[in-house]
């Protein structure tokens, strides 16, 4: 089982390919959209490449949960994520660091949750599962 550093290195290399950025631009805290310029088509590409690189299956919405962003009124109201939405996020993304987001849960800030670190932790979790796929 690769350790966290090894996973981070591979994730980083994957993002270099998918987003056409230089390795130097990537930090653990880099956000995919804000810092690295990812668009929706890129999120798709990232998922495909991670699946291939790590030999895992990433079911739709597991890494980038779409339901929160689809404007479902249970989860999102007036541009803010509701308590129910936060609970959903916590459950669906145990690998994400929600501490800052929870203080001001603006929908527009959800994209800041998607960092290189987050992906690394997600992959680590997947590989640790007995039947990781």
């Amino acid at each position, binding site marked *: 089982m690769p350790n966290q550093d090894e996973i981070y290195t591979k994730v980083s290399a994957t993002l270099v390919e998918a987003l*056409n950025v230089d390795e130097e631009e990537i930090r653990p805290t880099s956000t995919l959209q804000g810092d690295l310029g990812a*668009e929706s*088509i890129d999120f798709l*590409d990232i998922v*495909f490449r991670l699946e291939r690189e790590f030999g895992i299956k990433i079911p739709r919405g597991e890494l980038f949960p779409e339901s929160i962003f689809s404007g479902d009124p249970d989860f999102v109201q007036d541009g803010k994520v509701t308590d129910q939405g936060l609970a959903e996020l916590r459950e669906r993304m145990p690998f994400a660091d929600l501490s800052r987001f929870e203080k001001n849960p603006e929908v527009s800030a959800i994209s800041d949750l998607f960092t290189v670190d987050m992906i690394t932790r997600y992959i680590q979790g997947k590989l640790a599962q007995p039947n990781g796929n």
Partner: protein
Amino acid sequence: MRLKDQIAVVTGGSRGIGRAIVLALAAEGARVAFVYHGNEEAARSLEHQVKENGGLAAGSKVDVTDAKAVDAMVEKLLGEWGRIDVLVNNAGIIRDDLFVRLDEEAWTTVLNTNLGGTYHFCRAVAYPMMTQRRGRIINMSSIAAEHCNPGQANYAASKGAINALTRALAVELASRNVTVNAVAPGFIETDMTAAVRNKAGDLIKKYVPMRRLGQPDDVARVVLFLASADSGYLTGQVLTVDGGLSLGAISA
């Protein structure tokens, strides 16, 4: 040699406009994989002709309505030739009849071949082109989508849908430097238009400001432009190639 070392796929390549496209792309240095359905002899003859001219074209018999067959062909091509730079969705058929008489099979077959075939091939090449960060998709439309004659409701519907698909796909793939455009030919001298031309005869020249039918190469030249680096900022467009027919002028 505007397409030197590029790999092109042309559907419906063995005859008519498709054949002219294969010849034009190969003449500019592209290696062309073309797809045909029925005419084995025409396919082999085209391969031979391209080879005589110093180029390379390889024909595969694939039913464009069969998603699995299309995926398999594209996968094999990527395995052997490594990339796909240009896709020309030219395979198309007509099954004309007045709408109230048009049977369901005629409706479905035309939609499945023209629109479905285009969809299957676009789907197969979209991700490879995305990862290459470069691609050219050219769909064959027709003036029939906008300038409709009786008896072609199914054909017009399929081509209108292709125009919309062209625009939608152009938007989705643009950020990865893949352009998606369509060419809408008018009256071109091919097998497909033989019956209509026999009936209409000189009337065609009355309605075409350029006073002549189009030749397959007239269309192939525009496809070549869209396949080349010259059209790098042009996407989501339908280019009409009809000698002025759709302008609606009638000469005395």
